[in-house]
């Protein structure tokens, strides 16, 4: 498959750099940056895959709203929000059992379950940094 820049020549806004304090690029945490790296996605599917779940949810919720009224997506989203809070601290592996059951992920298998399993990842996140990021102190 030719993954060259032929398919990725349109700059895209979703690939923004990590902005640290004072609105400037944070070299310490995200390394050196170049405009070309930030603007152009490295693969045609990168952006689509990053936002796939979000877009699916948006589509489903808006369908639900049109069919059943506003209460249906509201109730579901409240349940999702409650289930999302049942997890361990960010640097530990949580099973997301309640969230998966609500979303229906317990009855399907896709590449997210087979490839790049987070529980087998070679990198361990630093506990302090991940906690600060989660609490918004970073």
């Amino acid at each position, binding site marked *: 498959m030719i*993954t060259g820049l032929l398919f990725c020549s349109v700059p895209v806004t979703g690939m923004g750099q990590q902005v640290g304090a004072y609105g400037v690029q944070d070299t310490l945490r995200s390394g050196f940056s170049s405009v070309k790296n930030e603007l152009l996605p490295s693969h*045609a599917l990168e952006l689509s895959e990053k936002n796939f779940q979000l877009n699916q949810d948006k589509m489903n919720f808006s369908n639900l709203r049109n069919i059943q009224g506003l209460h249906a997506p509201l109730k579901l989203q409240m349940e999702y929000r409650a289930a999302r809070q049942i997890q361990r601290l960010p640097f530990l592996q949580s099973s997301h059992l309640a969230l998966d059951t609500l979303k229906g992920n317990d*009855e399907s298998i896709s*590449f997210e379950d087979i*490839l*790049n399993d987070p529980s087998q990842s070679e990198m361990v*996140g630093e506990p302090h940094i991940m906690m600060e990021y989660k609490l918004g102190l970073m």
Partner: protein
Amino acid sequence: MATLSVCQPQLGGFSFENCKRNAVLEAEVTKLGCNVPSARKTGTTICGVVFKDGIVLGADTRATEGMIVADKNCSKIHYISPNIYCCGAGTAADTEMTTQIISSNLELHSLSTSRLPRVATANRMLKQMLFRYQGHIGAALVLGGVDCNGPHLYSIYPHGSTDKLPYVTMGSGSLAAMAVFEDRYKQDMEEEDAKRLVRDAIAAGIFNDLGSGSNIDLCVITKGRVDYLRPHDMANKKGVRSQRLIRPVYAYKQGTTGVLTKSVIKLDLEVVEETVQTMDTS
């Protein structure tokens, strides 16, 4: 794998971290004149036909890697569920993983609904997944099976479009196989006729297309019975070397060379000396 600090937990699925590095490496390698290693494709002939009581699926058994045959007897008819089978053409790994994932999903689905899965369900799952990846997963499939509504046959293209037809062919030998189908297909054939038709179509693909070869596999699916015939027909048998495998015998048969004359001369030998030497066996 980034060496910067990780702020958010990693997600599963495809990771595009090395794409830019790969593009740079590919450019460097082509500048030196070498070739990047290519994925193993199946360069295939696969086909399927609907007959009176069910479906017949057929496939050849050659897998190629560029110009070399990588596997002389690979299996291209994959199991999806007890009543549904799927032939795969295109990149071998893609067809293998895709059919396995869909088979698992269909099993979970059928456990959840307590019913035998339908071919239309498998078709929809496959097309939604292939469309999600916009054709980067190179899997062209022929999906066939018998469910509560009768026999169904679908062809699924790598970008996610599907066709529901009475006879389909896919792969590099699809034109040769389709020529045979267009000539001899009839509605409501008997099982033996359908098997012969599929065998001839795959044979046309094998003999007229470089990417297909070796044997012909068939899969006959009817209500309540699946016959997985592998191999159904060995169209390209390899020659047999001589009997002895360790040290082959290159001898000629008796009588290969004609005998013209034969004369026997007896040599008279007399005993001159006789000595005995004892062996030291200590």
